[in-house]
C-alpha cells in the first residue's frame, strides 16, 4: 500500500536482496514490524511471509511488538556473557515475566538482548532509556527495575 511505498521506492532495483534493509527502515519508522507491514513487503518482494518471518526472527534486531515505555537492552556479548549477563537476563525475565523481544502486557517494559555495546570494561552492561548501567548483577538489576517502576508512578 501507499503507506510503505515511500520506503519501497528507495530500494527500487535491489530486488529481494533489499529485504533486511526494508525491514530496518520500517522498524525505524514504526518502532517495530507490524504484520501489515510484513505482508506488504511479502507482496512487494514476492517473498513468502513465512520466509520473511523466518529471516526477521533470526536477527535479534527485529521486533514484532511495540517497545515498552521502558526499553531494557541487555548486552550478551562475549565479555558480558562471561561476566554473568545470563543471570541478569534471567532475573529480568523472572521480574518482568517477558522474554527477549517481548513487551509486557501493560506496555511498561520491553526487553532486548544485544551483542556488545562497546562497553566491555563495565560488563555486564544493561542500558535503559539511554542510561548505561555497568557491573550489573541480579540484585542491582532488581533495583534498576524498581527505580523504573517508581518513575512511572
Amino acid at each position, binding site marked *: 500500500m501507499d503507506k510503505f511505498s515511500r520506503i519501497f521506492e528507495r530500494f527500487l532495483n535491489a530486488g529481494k536482496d533489499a529485504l533486511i534493509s526494508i525491514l530496518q527502515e520500517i522498524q525505524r519508522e514504526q518502532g517495530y514490524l507490524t*504484520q501489515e507491514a510484513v505482508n506488504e513487503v511479502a507482496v512487494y518482494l514476492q517473498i513468502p511471509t513465512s520466509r520473511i518471518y523466518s529471516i526477521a526472527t*533470526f536477527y535479534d534486531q527485529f521486533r514484532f511488538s511495540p517497545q515498552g515505555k521502558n526499553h531494557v537492552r541487555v548486552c550478551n556479548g562475549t565479555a558480558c556473557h562471561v561476566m554473568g549477563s545470563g543471570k541478569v537476563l534471567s532475573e529480568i525475565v523472572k521480574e518482568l515475566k517477558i522474554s527477549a523481544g517481548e513487551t509486557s502486557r501493560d506496555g511498561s517494559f520491553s526487553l532486548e538482548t544485544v551483542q556488545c555495546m562497546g562497553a566491555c570494561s563495565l560488563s555486564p552492561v544493561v542500558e535503559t532509556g539511554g542510561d548505561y548501567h555497568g557491573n550489573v548483577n541480579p540484585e542491582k538489576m532488581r533495583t534498576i527495575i524498581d527505580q523504573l517502576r517508581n518513575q512511572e508512578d
Partner: protein
Amino acid sequence: MLFNIEVNNKQIIAKKGETVLECLNRNGLNVPTLCHMNGFSPTGACRICVVEVDGKNNLIPSCSHPVEEWMKIKTHSPRVIKARQQIVELLLSNHPDECLYCERNGNCELQDLAIDLNVREKRFSGKKNMHKKDHASPSILRDPAKCILCGRCVRVCDETVSVSAIDFIRRGNRMVIGTAYNKGLNLSTCVDCGQCIMVCPTGALYEKTHIKKVMDALHQPSLQVNVHFSPSVSVSLAEEFGFRSGKDISGLLIAALRKIGFAKVFETAFAADAAIYETASQLSDSIKSGNKSTMFSSCCPGWIKFAEEFYPDMLAHISTVKSPQQIMGQIIKESYARQQKIHPENLFTVSIMPCTAKKFEAQREEMTLRGITHNDAVLTTRELASLIKLYGIDMQNIEPEQTDAPYNLRSSAARLYAVSGGVAEAVIRTLNFMITGNEMDNLKINELRSSASRREYFIKMGRYQLGFAVVSGLAEARKMINEIRNGRSDLQFIEVMACEGGCIYGGGQPIGLSEKDIKARAKAIYEMDDKETIRVSHKNPGLTELMNKLKKQEVDGSPVMNFRTSYSKRNILL
C-alpha cells in the same frame, strides 16, 4: 568425467560434480542420512552423513560435499561412528521420551538411527522440548516438540508444493519450525496436501485422525455407516500387509471393511465416472460453443485451495464439477438413502482417501446438501491400515468380496484418477465420444503416461484441434498458469494434481516407501486399465441409470443432487 577415489581401502568410480553421498550410494555403499532428500538441494544440516577424509581435520558431510579426485574416504571408521552416535544422542536429549505413544512408533527414522547406531544409554539429558501442538488445521497436526529441525518439510513445502507455509523461526536452541507469525496452520498458505507428513522423519507431523469418530459411529446402533474408498487406496495398501508393492487388493479390502462393520462398501470410482462424465460434458459444451479458453481439472482439493489462495483470477477457468469424494458422498446420502428409504441423518459416510486435503475438502461449506454433509469422516490410507490392524483382520487369510449394488460397477477410466495424467486420459476418452459420437481407436494415451511433471497431448476430435496438459506438483502448476496468463491458448484442458505423481503418492499414503513402490502402483493401475472391459466412463451402466434417474427427478421437480460447486478467493498471507 570419471575418476577413481578410495573408499574403505577400495577403489570406486566417481563422477565429477556429484556429491560424496551420491557417489557412495551409486556404488552400493550406504551412509545414514536424516536431513537429505533425493532430488532436493542439500543443506548439510544434520551431520549424520559425515565421513572421514584423509587430510581433512574435520569430518565432512557427504550429502553436500562434492567428490574430489584425491579423496580417501572412510565411511565407518571409529571416529565417524562415534560422531554419528553423538549426533543421535544429542537429538534424543531434548526429544520427548514418548516413543511408545507416538504416531510413528515403529516407523521413525530417528528411532531407526538410534537402533542402527546402537545407542543404548542416555548420556545427555537436556531440557525437553515443550512446544505446544498445532491442532488448528482440519487435516494436518503439527507437534513441534518432536521436531528435530531437519527442514525436510520446509523444503518440500517450498520446492515441490511451492506454497512455503512453514519455515524456520528464530535460531539456535530456540529454533522451531512454524508458520508466519507462528500462528495455526489453518491461517497459513498451507493447502493441506500432506507432503510434509510424507517427508517427516519423526512424529512431528501427521494427519488429524478420524479413527475415533469412525469407531464411535460404528458402535452407534441408530447409524448406518457406509464407506467408499478412492481408486488409489487398494494399490497402496499391499506393503502394509505383506503383499508385493502395487498389488491391487480391492477384493480383500472390501472384505476387511465389511468385517470391521461397515454396512455398505462402495468404490469412489463410481463417482469418478460421474465426475469424468460431468467434466467432459462441461468441456464439450464449452468447445462446441466456440469457447477457446482453458479449463482446469477440479478433483484435487490441494490444487483448488492453492488456486483460491494464489490465483483467484484462474478460479473461473476451473471446472465446477465436485470431486469424486464429494459426489460419492452425495450419491450415498441422496440417491441411496432415497432408494433404501433411510433418512440421510441416519447415514454416516466414511471416505478412504490417499490424501490429507480431502479432510479439508469434506468440511468445506459448499460440500453439503440441504444441511447434510456429503461425507462425515475421511480416513487416509495410513489410518485405514491401522484400523484394519486394530480390528485384527488377517488380510492374508480372508476371501475377496465385491462392492455393493447399486454402485458396484465402474470403468477402468475411473481408476486412472489415482495417477497423475489419469484424469486427463479419462476425460479425453469420454470427450471424444461426446464430440465425435465414436470411441477412440486406441484408448491408451502414452503421451500422458510418463512420470514427467509436465506432459502435453494434442489430438483432433471431429473438426476441433484440441490440446491437453497434465501437471503434477504445484510448483509446475505455477509455471503452467503463468503461460496461460501470458496468453497461451492451445490448451483446452489442464489436469492439476498437487502431489507429484498424483494420488498414488498422496499425503495420506503409507510413509517411507521407495520410488519403486510408487511406480509399482502406477503400473498396477495401468495394467488394470488394459485388462478390463468397461474402459470409458460413459459406458458404466450404473452411471447411465443414475443419470437417467436424475433427469427424471429434475423433470418431476423433486430435489436433485448437485454435482457442481463454486470457488472463492481466499485472503491469505502470501
